[in-house]
């Protein structure tokens, strides 16, 4: 049984996570100001990767999912990811068609 008070997490690591999130945000903003250094598609990829890293830090540390039981951790992550993959199945073919052939 997980007890949020029981695991030996220090406050310091939360300050590091907070600093890391601010640093990642600074990188995102820098990319936003220098958007000519790469194509829009690459920019989107980089920004999404940074967002996924930030969300993993928030879910894992701030929301304490890292310290929950493995069953709860995996069930939540797999079920939400599966739903997003299903959404992506609807989105991707038509988005690909529009990108390849234009709006018709």
């Amino acid at each position, binding site marked *: 049984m997980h*007890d949020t*008070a029981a695991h030996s997490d220090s406050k310091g690591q939360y300050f590091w996570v*907070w600093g890391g999130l601010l640093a990642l945000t600074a990188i995102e903003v820098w990319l936003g100001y220098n958007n000519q250094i790469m194509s829009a598609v690459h920019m989107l990829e980089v920004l999404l990767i940074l967002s996924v890293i930030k969300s993993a830090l928030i879910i894992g540390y*701030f929301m304490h999912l890292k310290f929950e039981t493995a069953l*709860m951790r995996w069930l939540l992550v797999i079920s*939400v990811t599966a739903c997003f993959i299903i959404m992506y199945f609807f989105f991707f073919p038509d988005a690909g068609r529009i990108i390849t052939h234009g709006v018709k």
Partner: protein
Amino acid sequence: MADATMEHDAVQHGLPGEYEAPLFGAYSKKVGMWLFLASDSLTFGALLFAFSYNRIYTNPWPTPFHGESIANATIMTACLLSSSLTMVLAVFASQRKDRAWTRNWLLATMVFGTAFIVLHGMEWSKLIDEGLAIPGFASLLGVTKSSTTGELADISKNVPQFPQAFFGLTAMHMLHVTIGVIYLGVVAFRKWFLPVLAVIWIAGALLIPSGNVFHYPVHTLGLGLLLAAVILFLKPKDYDSHDVEICGLYWHFVDLVWMFIFPLVYLMSTKVS
């Protein structure tokens, strides 16, 4: 949590009426909040997919956000990230049963959340004044100051998908932040928060001019006040560390969603020279 475990262990299994051990190793309120957040993430996921689809479908997609908007959104992001840290500190204080610091850290979280709402509201008002509006919706809300000429007015006329997607997504998020601040206020101050919320609501209703986009939406606070009063009347409890942790989960989720809205909506639509 630990007490709950001991209660479960003390029960003789196989007897009628025994408690069933929690499936996920967490108390039911926490599991309930996680399930709600999982379902709410799909709401935002669908909105973000809709935004992305609009963006791909519309060529060229407007890039109206100048340096000032990006700076404003960056400060808003810093406010939310800092509020998540103060929320974690509130959970720690509640687990040590330090009521004063729990309240202080929750109050700090509310201040950051309120700063986010105010900054976002100011940005909305500025964009609407410059002509960015959902066709037909502005007149429905009684917005009178919207410009009919200029870059943003042209976007509203020629690419109405942009204001629809932008306002739809950010309004949904702003509503969640507002609910979060009220939730934190109820957990931190219980019934003492109600008169404060009532004063803010009445002041907002009186002070926000009729032509402003927030003239009617400010009554969301009145709805929040009613709901908070009903909840406190039905369950006038002293909120413990579990309640603080659960409201923290909600608050971090609001922060988490913004981590996707900020790059997708703002940084991918910049016009910075």
